[in-house]
């Protein structure tokens, strides 16, 4: 029997994290597994608001209060069903979403009571259900003989595939890597998202009937072929081009881009044999940038037993774009943060040796509403560096087949969706697109939302 006051009487408790000592060496998720009792207790804190702000804020509009209620009474399989009504990969979102900026940030209780641990419960529900043999059901057996091809097995493509197949539409997913997941697999380190999670998803999708064609770089020619054999195509290729930043000396040895660093590390961890490794053991590492990728890099470096790890960021802590919990984890694990610090010059003869940084203060807000950092004169400082990681973010780099197929792109290289018939349809009616490649580098949850919605649009498109 509920008392209606659980939200005060029970404190918000996140699952315990493993000891720092272990975390610093292991590429494994840092949270201990939760038990059902604590999940029940934590979900009972939900007020079941008439205006569920969590659901409203969530890009997928997950039925959060509803599945929290199910979790509270222990109906985990029903909860998993409900999670999957709005989300293709709830256990992944539960792990990697910046909840404090989305659902938990909007939670009514986040006004002094501390929000419900939505992410952790979401993760628990699906993990638990899957481990007990639960599987997402097909909504429609088979509705059409048509085939949809999906380019890119990242979150957008996979979500699109999941939605199509559960609604009875055949689909084939192409990807250049040997494992599905895109950045979920290669960009996000294991201590946030263990790879067996994605592998499990692959099994489920394949069982539902999704066909994967991997290690398959789609070029113009291959595209032609795919186009011929498909009734519609969904592009979810993401944005992989790193933003370089305006610093001298980027070409020196010892300067690496974030994504290749993370991907190579993951490949190495997945299979030591045929993967290249970038190892930072005993190195003095500096990471430039303040987003989630930067956090992934610093924390990876820690686990590689770097000698020291610095994070250099132009604004202050409050203005960091990265997830607050990730910053917290990084600090716990020993990363040193240099806030209000702007990299000015990479020093070294062929190989990076030092980084010159300058102090900044925050000026007036710019067009985007964020306050612009202004360099303080004569505040330069020198850092010793062995390895410098650039994690300023990514930008679009449209593949050649895009132009070839008359798909319009914007100045920023993003695919323009100006077709009014269907949402997510490109200027070439047969092509749909979603994820980072239409909005620029962003959260996985947005990509999933695009993929799901695009699937519904594609079905409508196929029906006519």
């Amino acid at each position, binding site marked *: 029997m509920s008392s*209606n006051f659980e939200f005060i009487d029970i404190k918000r408790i996140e699952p315990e994290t493993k000891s720092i000592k272990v975390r610093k060496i292991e590429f494994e998720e840092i949270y201990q597994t939760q038990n059902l009792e604590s999940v029940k207790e934590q979900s009972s804190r939900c*007020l079941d608001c008439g*205006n*569920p*702000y969590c659901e409203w804020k969530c890009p997928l*509009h997950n039925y959060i*209060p509803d599945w929290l209620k199910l979790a509270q009474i222990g109906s985990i399989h029903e909860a998993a069903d409900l999670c999957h009504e709005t989300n293709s990969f709830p256990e992944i979102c539960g792990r990697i979403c910046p909840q404090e900026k989305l659902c938990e940030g909007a939670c009514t209780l986040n*006004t002094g009571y501390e929000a419900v641990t939505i992410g952790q419960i979401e993760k628990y529900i699906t993990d638990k259900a899957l481990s007990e043999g639960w599987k997402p059901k097909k909504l429609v057996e088979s509705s059409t003989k048509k085939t949809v091809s999906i380019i890119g097995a990242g979150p957008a493509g996979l979500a699109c595939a999941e939605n199509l197949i559960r*609604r009875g539409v055949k689909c084939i997913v192409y990807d250049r890597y040997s494992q599905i997941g895109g950045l979920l697999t290669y960009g996000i380190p294991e201590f946030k998202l263990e790879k067996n999670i994605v592998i499990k998803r692959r099994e489920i999708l394949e069982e539902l009937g999704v066909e994967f064609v991997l290690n398959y770089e789609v070029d113009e020619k291959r595209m032609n072929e795919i186009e011929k054999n498909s009734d519609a195509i969904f592009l979810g290729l993401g944005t992989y081009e790193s933003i370089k930043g305006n610093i001298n000396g980027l070409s020196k040895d010892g300067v690496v881009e974030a994504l290749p660093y993370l991907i190579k590390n993951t490949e190495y961890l997945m299979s030591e044999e045929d993967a290249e490794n970038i190892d930072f053991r005993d190195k003095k590492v500096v990471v430039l940038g303040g987003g989630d990728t930067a956090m992934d890099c610093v924390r990876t470096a820690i686990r590689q037993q770097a000698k020291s790890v610095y994070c250099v960021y132009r604004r202050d802590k409050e203005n960091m774009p990265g997830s607050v919990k990730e910053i917290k984890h990084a600090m716990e694990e020993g990363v040193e943060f240099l806030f209000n610090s702007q990299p000015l010059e990479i020093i070294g003869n062929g190989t990076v040796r030092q980084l010159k940084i300058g102090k900044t203060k925050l000026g007036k807000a710019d067009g985007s509403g964020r306050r612009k950092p202004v360099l303080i004169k004569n505040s330069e400082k020198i850092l010793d560096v062995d390895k410098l990681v650039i994690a300023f973010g990514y930008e679009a780099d449209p593949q050649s087949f895009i132009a070839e197929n008359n798909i319009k792109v914007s100045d920023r290289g993003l695919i323009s969706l100006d077709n009014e018939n269907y949402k997510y349809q490109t200027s070439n009616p047969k092509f749909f697109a979603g994820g980072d490649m239409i909005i620029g580098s962003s959260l996985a949850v947005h990509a999933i939302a695009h993929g799901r919605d695009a699937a519904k649009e594609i079905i409508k498109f196929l029906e006519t």
Partner: protein
Amino acid sequence: MKGKIQIQDHDSCGTGVLFSKNNEFNHSVIKRALLSLSNMKHRGALSYDGVTTDGCGILLDIDRKFFQKKLLEEQNLILPNNFSIAVLMVQDNFDYKKKFSEICSKFDLKISAERELNVDRNLLGELAKKSCPRIIHAFISPKKNNDTENLEVSFFKIKKYLDNNFCAEKELYCVSFSAKTIVYKGLVHPDVFSSFYSDLADERHKSASSTFHIRFSTNTSPKWHLAQPYRLIAHNGEINTISGNRNWATARIQNFKSKHLGDLKDYYPLINQKGSDSSSLDNILELFTLGGINVGRAARMLIPPSWQNTDLMDADEKAFHEYNSMHMEAWDGPALICFQNNNYVSCFLDRNGLRPARIEYFDDNTICVSSEVGSNEMKGLKRIETGRLGPGGLILFDRNAKELLMNDQVDKKLSTSKPYREWLKENSKHLEANLHTYSGPEMREVSEKYFQQSCNSFLLNKEEMEMLRVYAMESNEPTGSMGDDTPISPISKKIRSLYDNCRQKFAQVTNPPIDSLREKSVMSLETCIGPELNIFEETSEHANRIVVNSPILSHKKFNLLLKNKKFPCKRFSLEYRESEGLEEAILRVLDDVVKSVKLGTNLVVLDEKQSSSKIPVIPALLATSALHNRLINENLRTKCNLIINTASARDNHQIACLIAFGATCVHPWLGLQAILKVSNNSMDLSSNELCVAYRKCLNKGLLKIMSKMGISNVSSYRGSGLFEVIGFSDEVNSLCFPKNDSLIKGESFEDLHKKNMLSISFDGSDDRVAKGLHKYKHNGEEHAFNPDVVMNLQNSLKSGSFKEFKNYSSYVNSRKPLAIRDYFELCSNNKPINLEEVEPIESILSRFDSAGMSLGSMSPHAHETLAAAMNGLGCRSNSGEGGEDPKRYGTNLESKIKQVASGRFGVTPHYLRNAEVLQIKIAQGAKPGEGGQLPGSKVDSYIAELRYSKPGITLISPPPHHDIYSIEDLAQLIYDLKQVNPKALVSVKLVSEPGVGIVAAGVVKANADFITISGHDGGTGASPISSIRHAGSPWETGMYETQNTLLQSNLRSYVRLQTDGGLKTAEDVIKAAVFGADSFGFGTAPMIAMGCKYLRICHLNNCATGVATQQLRIINDHFLGEVEKVQKFFEFTAHEVREKLAKLGLKSLEDAIGDTSLMILKKDYKDESVKLGFDRLLDRYRPNKKQSNELKKNLINNSLSDESLNNLITKKLKTNLAKGKGGSFNFEIKNTQRSVGARLAGDIAEKFGREGFPEKIILNFKGNAGQSFGCWNSKGVELKLNGLANDYVGKGMNGGKIVITKNKHLNQERPVLVGNTCLFGATGGEFYATGVAGERFAVRNSGAKAIIEGTGDHCCEYMTGGEVIVLGPVGNNFGAGMTGGFAYVFDQDRSFVDKCNKDLVSFNRITSQEMEAHRSYLKDRIAHFIKETNSNIGNEILEDFEKYQSLFWIVTPYAENLSRIIRKTREDAA
């Protein structure tokens, strides 16, 4: 005419009959009847001219000698002995003579003489004069010699012919036509009635009996022919079931076959379908009595007592009533009927005793039964006995035998006249009794796939599944809070259940809701199945019926019915081919059924089931209603019963719709399947138990919906169509809902068919289907207070910038249409003016009120923040119904509007005196027809203290105000309030629904200064969810109707109109003004300004924002409400109003009120608006002169206050009051002097505050007190009355003492001394009376101590404190809903056990050892009673207490503790 509103008549009144026990003709019978009229004029109403009444009249025996003399005098004409008189009202230019003599000669009758009455029109008011007809007495004789009985039948047919062929208002109306009785009536002030009709002043004019009536009609323009009495009866009250009764009267027409009456075909309709409910009742009584039914049986058939749920009734009598119920549904509602014809005089009262009916026996052998005692008191006449009619009471005087029979005596006689019990035993079959013989299958679960498919096709979504789960698990509807902020279904862009198009009707003012929970003894769902037979015959065959205890069938009962051997049964599938189309399909089914019924099918089963996902199904709602109407038209309806095997109807609202539109029984198979699914997850309860619980919950819900209309019998609800049906095109309406007259139109058959096709092909996750109807869901139904709106508003107030606020308001104003107003935009031909030219912000703000939100539902902090904010701005805040801390009076934290609601929590003279506006809450937008609720968890000690209740006990306000069962009762309450606080304005809060305009007109005539029309979307702190969603209309239609009705009847300028319901922005304000509002109430918006986030958990007491909780740990740490933020909201809004006015070129908001030229339909939605019928909302009824918005002084009923004894008391006590000095004073009192003591209480409260008068004032009265004697009596004041009192004695008493002793001429033991609803809402004081009280004694008492010698039904209902000692018999349903205080009852005839409602109370003997303290306390109290009153009964009991003590019960609520009671009581006394 544009904007002209169709008006239905409602009336309520004062009435009575005075007759001679010896059937002696005497002029004093007439004279005294006229005196009664004059002395009950406060029960009637006056129109705007201050003289025209709503009508009064009397019905007399024809004094043959008198008329012979008259004609000799007037025309020198000698009348033959054998004459009858037809009284005709003829409009000036209408040539009635030829037509009338033609129809008479058809019946071999001739007009022997005629006299046009020489009436004095100068005595009439302006309005009455305009429409005054010529009044003609036509003396009719047979051409040949005929016997009298047959003549009356001829007269009946002539009356029918005239009724059906001539317009009563414009041509001709036959007032009465009989050889024995005659009626004088009209729109004449009772004081001049006998001057107008000089016949009546003539002392030679005699009668043995006279029935009199004075009318208060909510009808706006009074009409001559609607004055009462009608031809046989006068009626005080309201027939709530009238629409169903009329339908069934039509349906039954072929069952009215009597050898006395002959062929009636040419005279259809026999029962009028328009006009007033009373006239229809008069019609059917005339039909029955002429057709050979004894008037006693006719009365019992039409207005039966509640026989279904009582254990006290004799078996023969029960059988008699059950037999009657098989052929006639009850005409239900508050009603006192006075009947008079040649052979009988009779009075009878409705089953719940909702109207006063006092009996007086005089020493001149006359008896008077009437609404009030003492109305025809004359010098020298002594009253020797008094009595009253109780619930279902009946008095029958056989004029020929000179035999007077009361209640049981009548029933005994009637019930043994035929072997009813035997007939029933042999022929009728109760379904449940035979359950064990059933061998059919249990309900089996359908396949998951079929279940899912059915859920999709019939729109059963997760939200509803959850609701059904609660139905089954808790056998109760789930509770919710806040309002329904979704669009009404015709506006919604989603596919919604068709039942959402039906909005529950509810009673307000003219006819009250009843409390189906606390007064369940009068409620019944019993349903008879089988064909009906001729009503005029009585045979055993008539008892051949199957009886079920509820129309909601279990699977077993459904199967039993299908397999029954008595009546042929046939199933009809509602599936149809896509190509056929919906309309064709419905017509096909109707034809099939009609054919089959003609061939003898009795049970028609409509199957709403789908065999495959491709096949569409006719919605059961449309099929049922269309079929019901078709069968009526074919005269087949009573030959068969409709049983609906439905998938679409699953909750109580949906099932109520089917029954109201004609279903006999309903088997909700998909609902039951859903419960089976629930049972799969339930460990504790079996599927059968859950199904039983589910149906129990549906039964409760059905009763609740019926009770909102004041209907207690499902048979009277069936086929009544008591829903406002919105959102259908005219073609759909004409086939399925032919009587529907909603302003909101909508979809055609084609549209419905398309939606039907869409819904059967859904996969369940489609966004086109509505979801999130209660709580917001993304891509679900739109919500007016969605997260964006809430966040935008809160953020803009946090920033404090007007620019951001405008972002909020333009976000709201540019939303997709969600309310009717969204289809309109403001426009003007005027040139914009400068902002400076517009009236200042203060004058806009003065029109803003906060809507009533009680302290209790809100935290004290929020309540005070709101009050402070409103006071600071010069706006008014509304206390809500939970009382207010006296500490706040006179400070900036006080609420200027103080609410008086049905629970009367904390309504003391002090409270009332500290208000600028007193608002009577008749209904609230969130749940009209139901009372407020405050969950026990929110009743902490502070709240309990203010509400005079116990912490932790849930407080539920009764659905009705127990002192308002009729419009004249509202007038009385308004009078009471104006007496206690003469400076306050009285406001009446109504909820929008069709007909609200007429109610509002009545309310104006009842002297209200303000009327609030609330929209259905108003909020609430706690309510069953189905109530939030399905009752009430948008304020736009209600305001349109009210504005037009008031204009039409010249009443608009006497009242200020307010609207509330979801107002959010300046644009809403101006649009509301254009619809007619003078002022504006805001509820939710200022709450959000205080931090409310629309969480809809107000009922749980865990509101995290601290607004709607009493938890200090939340409030102290998390309540962020600031006076400034609330003020910002109002200032910004007012400022924006000014900006918009400037743009419209208007200098003040006044100029916008009622000016529909300022609004046009939005272009983008024009087609849609026209389809929905919204274009008509811009029509205005305009009287010849321009409507002035200036408020006039209300002259209506003003004259009455001159008689106020209160004025005299005030004058006499002036010095004493000023000095705080006690004293003793003597007064005479009569029944016209009402609310005596209230003014004094108010004056004392003003001067001495809560503590009352410091010394003792004793006021001695002699005579008969008018209503509300001693209401709101104050500490320090003792009112002693020797005589009789009417209703509401000691209402709201806060302190002091009321002592009523019988007059020395009354020799009887236990005379009825006081009327109904005494001590209602009393918060303290003492009450003693040496006699018996009427119904509802000490209802909602929370502090008064009373001793009385007997009471009627429902004594101590909802009591939360105080003590009641009854030294005599009590009525049924004692202690219903009682949660505090205690009672001792002297149970001499040992019947109390059956009369006590045991839901919340227990009763114990006081003889045991441990009850010692109680015995001695009781003895002390009786001794005190004797000291105060010298009561004989008290003396007798006390003298032999040892003997009598074993006959006492102590009644205590479960919430109380016996020993604590006595300790506490002793402490209080000390």
